[in-house]
């Protein structure tokens, strides 16, 4: 057990020294009456700099990460994060730039380089997805979804329509229904057919004049390209319904297909997945949203324009805009990483990344198909969906047990129990940056684990054995709700 930083605190110990105040500053009267002042200094830990370094270094060593382990977490695209992208995002000319500068009257000249990064990133994203325009403001994938839903609501409103329903397949990420709901829509769930595609009959029966949009993930969360996409797009558009693309799985399509060409009207990308910006232990990410020309007037303010003289400017004069969904221009430092990544790889490199992501997933599929159930066993895209159903039925070994056994083998587990429509789901997304040797080692462990489930199911109960912590009591956590150490001791 690593003590909490508060448990290392010793009264009077300290780390940082701040710039010294001049006598004149020290003499300036504060004029802060007692009523607005705190009685005590904030109750933060009192530790040395070395204490802090050792504490957080020790904590970091309790994590699996892409840098230390194979991390095939399905739908999360845990690919390698190039270090050059970190370096350019931290350049002082970006990191030290105050976001209010271009809002000064003469201010746009003060941020031409940063505005160009945004403008160029937008152009590259348009080409990658086949969309007409992008907003870079959304700060995460789910935030992109909400923005997309607000755009769709504004579009229908501008056409004098009040449509209240959004259709979402039962295989979708939970963020889809939650985002639609936050934008004021009612969610209607569409079934999946035996082959893993949207059930077209069910879809048709639910598509009506009240349907504002259809949200699709393509390839879907079963790892399968939606074969009925043209038909779904045509049916939707004939009905005045817009088609929303959840970009969580765009790593399967770069340079192979573009959502805009497939008929999507609104698209969000997860740059922390597809464009390799770091996941950071759960953020920050960025979720830029692309649209067709018809929806462009509704994009959030501001938009970066390029003038004829080659200069860049922020355009706030957009009367039909949905307004502001971020304080400024999006997560700039994340977007700068994504921009650098696209430049590094270029068009061919992005396609190569997608090709190898799909190659790796299919390699795992064929190598694991004898030992695990594969509910939709056909050529998959960038991820393959397994089920531990067979192990569960034969010996009571569940997907969660297999996940814990993989931890002891040194692999981060796949996504488990998602999508919800598959029992004992194990969703595996290897990504393109993993070598055949890594995949072979993972395959060997998966097969060994499947056999162990037959021969000795009891051993799973105590797994993982190799980690400092094993099988935390989640019920106790939820019941007792110890969410903070508010006072020392």
């Amino acid at each position, binding site marked *: 057990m690593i003590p909490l930083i508060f448990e290392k605190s010793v009264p009077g110990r300290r780390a940082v020294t701040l710039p010294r105040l001049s006598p004149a500053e020290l003499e300036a009267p504060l004029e802060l009456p007692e009523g607005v002042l*705190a009685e005590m*200094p904030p109750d933060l830990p009192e530790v040395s700099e070395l204490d802090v370094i050792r504490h957080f270094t020790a904590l970091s060593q309790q994590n699996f990460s892409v840098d230390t382990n194979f991390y095939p977490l399905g739908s999360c695209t845990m690919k390698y994060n190039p270090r050059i992208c970190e370096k350019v995002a931290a350049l002082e000319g970006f990191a030290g730039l105050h976001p209010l500068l271009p809002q000064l009257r003469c201010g746009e000249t003060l941020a031409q380089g940063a505005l160009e990064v945004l403008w160029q990133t937008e152009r590259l994203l348009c080409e990658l997805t086949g969309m007409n325009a992008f907003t870079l403001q959304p700060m995460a994938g789910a935030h992109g979804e909400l923005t997309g839903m607000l755009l769709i609501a504004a579009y229908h409103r501008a056409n004098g329509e009040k449509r209240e329903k959004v259709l979402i397949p039962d295989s979708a990420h939970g963020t889809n229904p939650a985002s639609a709901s936050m934008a004021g829509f009612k*969610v209607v769930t569409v079934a999946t057919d035996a082959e893993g595609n949207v059930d077209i009959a069910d879809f048709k029966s639910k598509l009506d004049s009240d349907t504002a949009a259809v949200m699709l993930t393509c390839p879907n969360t079963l790892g399968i390209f939606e074969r009925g996409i043209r038909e779904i797009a045509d049916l939707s558009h004939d009905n005045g319904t817009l088609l929303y693309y959840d970009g969580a799985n765009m790593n399967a399509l770069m*340079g192979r*297909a573009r959502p805009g060409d497939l008929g999507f009207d609104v698209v969000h990308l997860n740059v922390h997945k597809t464009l390799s910006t770091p996941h950071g232990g759960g953020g920050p990410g960025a979720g830029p949203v692309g649209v067709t020309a018809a929806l462009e007037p509704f994009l959030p303010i501001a938009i970066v324009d390029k003038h004829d003289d080659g200069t860049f400017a922020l355009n706030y004069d957009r009367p039909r805009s949905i307004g502001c969904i971020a304080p400024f221009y999006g997560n700039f430092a994340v977007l700068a990483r994504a921009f650098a990544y696209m430049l590094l790889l270029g068009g061919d490199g992005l396609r190569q990344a997608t090709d190898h992501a799909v190659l790796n997933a*299919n390699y795992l599929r064929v190598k694991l198909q004898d030992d695990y159930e594969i509910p939709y066993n056909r050529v998959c895209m960038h991820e393959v969906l397994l089920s531990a159903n067979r192990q569960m039925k034969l010996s009571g070994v569940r997907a969660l047990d297999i996940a814990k056994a993989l931890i002891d083998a040194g692999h*981060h587990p796949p996504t488990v129990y998602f999508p919800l429509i598959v029992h004992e789901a194990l969703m595996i997304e290897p990504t393109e940056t993993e070598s055949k040797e890594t995949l072979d080692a993972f395959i060997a462990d998966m097969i060994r684990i499947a056999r162990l489930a037959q021969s000795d199911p009891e051993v799973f109960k105590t797994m993982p054995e190799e980690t400092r912590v094993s099988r935390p*009591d989640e019920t106790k956590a939820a019941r007792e709700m110890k969410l903070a150490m508010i006072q020392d001791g």
Partner: protein
Amino acid sequence: MTFVPHTDKDRAEMLSAIGVRSMDDLFADIPAELRVKALDMAEGVSEQEVYDRLHEMSRRNAHSLTSFLGGGFYDHVIPAAVDSLTSRGEFFTAYTPYQPEVSQGTLQAIFEYQSMICRLTGMEAANASMYDGGTALAEAVIMAVNVTGRDKVVISTGVNPIYRRMIRSYTANLGIRLVELSASPDGVLDRAVAVAALDGDTAALIVQNPDYFGSVDDFSDLAQAARDAGALLIASVYPISLGLLKRPGDMGADIVTGEGQSLGLPLSFGGPYLGFFAVRQALVRKMPGRIVGETVDRHGKRCFVLTLQAREQHIRREKATSNICTNGALCALRATVFMSLLGRQGLREMAQSCARKAAYAKRRLAQIKGLRVRNRAPVFNEFTIELPAEADGVVCKLIDNGFAAGFPLGRYYPELGNCLLVALTEKRSKAEIDSFAEALEVAL
């Protein structure tokens, strides 16, 4: 550059194992007419070329002005250890801690973050963080409406105008009535007006401390008035100020949110930032976002897990408290390392330094003929001055002298066209303040 490790031999073996002849065969499900031939993008380039290109772009930004710009986003000291620790790959290349056994580092750091936010704000529970201070405040509005079952939200115009715009966009389709209470740089929020606005339909009253014009308040009485009306008090606060100022929890706030950028995050032209979100214990189950809780493992050892997930989108789908999925984990980690390094004394000293420099600058600028400090209430690190000319033009002139003089308020408050919001942090030296004052005097 490529990060794909496959050799020709690997590819051939893998395609053969799969039973297809070429990469193209793997994409046969995509209808032929919808396939892309090639992206219209330049070819990939080397690391050095990418560095040169972005370095050149970074130089076309005026990041080295002597800056008095604030408006909720401040240029504070960031100790070197913050960058050093948060650039460890074990932190920044991990993801959401779904598997607690291999994520204890992230989980414990978030638990410490939640604890520090509680201690700083005087609240009882905090979530694992949100995107920024504005989205945190918008989420607080939605939460208050859900908790109270009421639809009216009263907000002071002393709340950051950017956040007020964000709330409007966020809640556009939710049938929430936003009522604005007019605030001014001259004083704190008018109590009679605020209390009169609270009625049986009011879900929440939203205040900010210090307010956008820099004035510091004690809104304990407003918290009581809100409680009497059955409404929640939501406070948006500046975390560095809490090194010195009374905690919103001690004033009786029900929800406290704020922008955590000043806790060790660079300005970075607008993001990524950090939204913090804290509540009273009774409201925990209605709180949006990820939450980490303490528990024990099967050996009885203390450990940490994501908890109360039944509120969240991946379980509750359209009925979730919010659509938020990830938090700003790495930004929260930066804040946690920052607050550990500053510690009890350091954060107080930082707050005192800001306040002393603001007091000095306020007195120095007030000596300039024709210039008037508008705040009559006490200020912390930021204050509003009124110039004898339009502030926008004066700011433009001063840029040529190397100063970002502050933020002209006319952009968001048309009636305050001559007013300028001036911010100080511990990074501004007395010499810089003096030469700024001299340059301003000349410019006027």
